[in-house]
């Protein structure tokens, strides 16, 4: 039923977009005519009720009628005044030939494109490039003078670090591609562009390194992207959901990042990056469970510290999923597991609490999730209020009122912190959601229920593939040579090969014997 409604909506959208171009020449090959008034009439009918589209009539050399079409705010008006209007109005061209000659050779614009079909012209205007139409020729000149207000490059807000580059992507796609190009200068870095979205016509760039990325992978990414028929793409999240392998899984199967260095390190390992105009988040495929648990900083710090941090992260990943359910299971069913002294102190603090452990845990976990969500949505000015409410009311007052026990508050606090230790937000939130069914299982079946939950999660993780790469690789299926970057973070001079499944065409990433040694210096 829902699907049918969606289909209806979809066809409606397509019709909508068609009706816009259908006015006079319906097919895509419709061309400009020689008479300017006819052309202008056509554009006026298309851009009816579009107050932001400017039609500027001019006379070239005082004789030839011409029009400059642009969208207010998307074109560089000062440049247009200076470089286009000035020479055109002052030119001495008397006929079309002279005028064309002058246009092509004397107008100082870096990129001048000759367009003959109407859809091309519309695209040109929509992207912000002013269109120059002249009487007597059936060609439109697209002047590369697009310029709009954009955010300056800033520090990535969702992925912060102490060490490493501090710049993040912005919403403008050509700034993002330039940031990648500035890191990888080789021409084998490829950027293939395509446009997705019937109405938004969002520019999407598929980026990869030729000779490292698997051809089949690039083709697969192309196929999946070209399959998308949708009215609009507002964020890379749309594309992520439309191209992933297991749409019902709570786990992200595609890495999403706003750091150019992360994208480049993945490109160098043979993965494919998909950049989407209008969002700073670039998505990378394929990705694995363990690569979602790695932070960019792991590679910038000293390797023993990175390895230790990774283990800390794995430990807290387990804590973030299991701690509340283990607490519930042990308090409800397995008192004998706890040392007597500890059990007594926990029991004493739970004495006044009227709820069973399961209800208590659910209450506190839901409250914590609500606080977290509210913390993101609240305006900065009231943000402080939330932390006061969270810390004082829910923490201390609830314990004093005897509604929850102090150990439960500790458990929830540790769990909360643990879930934020996962470097990828999408991954952390996936595990946070899974916490709730496991708490229920723990309340119903104790440790047995917890184990059932764990087995179910691991079976599910084993089922997932991301663009053909098993999600749990390199652990299951085991790839011995890749454990150097999973269980530990081996020093850079040991990371000699690229991952097996993504970079198999070009396996070696460095020359052997890079291990530094005083005796090797000054050869």
């Amino acid at each position, binding site marked *: 039923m829902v699907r049918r409604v969606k289909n209806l909506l979809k066809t409606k959208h397509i019709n909508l977009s068609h009706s816009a171009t259908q006015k006079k020449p319906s097919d895509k090959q419709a061309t400009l005519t020689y008479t300017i008034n006819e052309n202008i009439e056509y554009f006026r009918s298309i851009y009816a009720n579009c107050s932001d589209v400017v039609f500027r009539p001019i006379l070239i050399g005082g004789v030839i009628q011409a029009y400059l079409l642009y969208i207010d705010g998307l074109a560089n008006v000062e440049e247009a005044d200076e470089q286009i209007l000035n020479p055109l109005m002052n030119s001495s061209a008397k006929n079309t030939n002279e005028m064309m000659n002058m246009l092509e050779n004397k107008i100082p614009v870096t990129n001048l494109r000759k367009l003959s079909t109407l859809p091309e012209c519309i695209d040109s205007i929509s992207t912000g490039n002013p269109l120059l139409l002249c009487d007597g020729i059936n060609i439109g000149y697209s002047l590369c003078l697009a310029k709009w207000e954009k955010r300056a490059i800033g520090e990535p807000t969702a992925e912060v670090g102490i060490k490493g580059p501090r710049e993040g992507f912005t919403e403008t796609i050509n700034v993002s591609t330039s940031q990648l190009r500035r890191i990888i200068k080789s021409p084998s870095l490829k950027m293939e562009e395509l446009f997705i979205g019937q109405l938004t016509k969002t520019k999407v760039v598929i980026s990869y390194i030729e000779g490292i990325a698997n051809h089949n992978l690039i083709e697969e990414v192309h196929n999946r992207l070209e399959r998308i028929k949708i009215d609009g793409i507002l964020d890379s999240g749309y594309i992520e959901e439309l191209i992933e392998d297991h749409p019902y899984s709570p786990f992200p199967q595609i890495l999403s990042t706003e750091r150019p260095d992360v994208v480049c390190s993945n490109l160098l390992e043979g993965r494919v990056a998909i950049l989407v105009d209008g969002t700073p988040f670039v998505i990378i495929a394929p990705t694995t469970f363990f690569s979602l648990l790695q932070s960019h900083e792991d590679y910038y710090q000293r390797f023993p510290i990175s390895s230790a941090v990774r283990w800390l992260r794995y430990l807290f990943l387990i804590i973030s999923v299991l701690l509340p359910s283990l607490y519930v299971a042990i308090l409800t069913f397995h008192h004998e597991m706890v040392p007597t002294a500890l059990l007594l102190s926990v029991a004493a603090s739970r004495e006044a609490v009227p709820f069973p452990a399961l209800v208590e845990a659910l209450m506190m976990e839901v409250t914590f999730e609500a606080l977290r969500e509210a913390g993101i949505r609240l305006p900065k000015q009231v943000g402080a209020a939330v932390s006061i409410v969270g810390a004082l009311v829910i923490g201390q007052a609830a314990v004093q009122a005897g509604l929850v026990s102090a150990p439960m508050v500790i458990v929830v606090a540790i769990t909360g912190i643990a879930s934020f230790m996962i470097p990828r937000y999408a991954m952390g939130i996936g595990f946070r959601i899974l916490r709730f069914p496991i708490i229920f299982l723990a309340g119903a*079946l104790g440790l047995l229920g*917890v*184990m059932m939950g764990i087995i179910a999660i691991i079976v599910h993780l*084993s*089922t997932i593939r991301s663009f053909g790469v*098993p999600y*749990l690789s390199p652990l299951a299926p*085991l790839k011995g040579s890749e454990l150097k970057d999973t269980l530990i973070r081996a020093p850079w001079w040991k990371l000699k090969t690229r991952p097996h499944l993504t970079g198999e065409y070009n396996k070696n990433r460095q020359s052997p014997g890079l291990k530094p040694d005083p005796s090797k210096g000054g050869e």
Partner: protein
Amino acid sequence: MDKGRISSMQMGMMMYLTIIATAILTVPSITAKYAQKDLWLSPIWASIIGFFTVIIVIQLSKRFPRQTFFQICEHTIGTLATKLLGFLYFTFFLIASGQITRTYAEFIKVFFIKTPVSVIMISMLLLSAFTVIAGIEVIGRVAQFFFPIFIFSVFIIIFLLLPQLEPSNIFPILENGLLPSLKGAIIPQVWFGELFLIVFLLPSLSDSKGMKWGIFTVLLILVTFIITNITVLFILNQNTEFYIYPFLSATQLVNLGDFIESIEPIIIAIWILGTFIKITVFYYVTILTTAQWLKLSDYKPIVWPIGILIVEVSVWGVPNLMVNNHIDITVFPLLFPIMQTFIPLFILGVAMIRKKSKTLEVH
């Protein structure tokens, strides 16, 4: 049928967990009944069946590469006999799966006295059914994930038990000659014979190291058996036979600095992981047997119906723990070797005498 491919290593890990998961619990006690203080020697004799079975199965698959067991049978003993044999194997695996599920439930019931057995069994079979539907690849990966956890925990527990060990319990060695330890091997050989299951996994292998990993798995199982039996012997001495789950009882003695104590819930937790693999592998093989016997094009539609049959066998066929252990001692030591070792041996013999073999045809 199942397009998935697993590596030989994954096959080895699957078989290791399949065999050790239940063996580690009840086998020391049953072995001790016959072998007394020589219970650590019995696995060595029992492992002969394991090596023997692996070699038979590998020889069969070398003669008929990429053929399922019933296709091999058809080539050697004809269609009619294969159909009959298929029925035998179908009932055999059904009973085996049901009994294994029951063993699991009985063990869990030690800790969950009020939980109905059916809840314990159905919850596990539900998980297994989903895994079976996901295919051999997923079973292989899950086994590979659980294998290190399992091994690591078993050895950590033995390490924690070190202060309690009494190495002098091992004496006298061979007090009554070899016979008691040989008698004690009769039960463990049932578990070693389960390596026959690899005949159903070999067609799904992505490499040709099946032989190497098969033998290696038997060795690893043997070592684990000996270590756990010795641990149990060092702790419980000649009382081993009076415990139903000696290894579990031994771990109850773990006490490190008065803080790490009563860790048996952790044992169940780890043990559930292993048994999950065991039940899933048997479930999968039952499904595969049925599908191959009836020449179905897809095995997924029969996963749920057979699952219900397994539950029924485990409830009706095995009414309680006593009957379960009785079957373990009286029926299985004969039934398992016949089905898992001697019938394949017979088929291999027929194939060798009639000089039948089938190399991969290039289409």
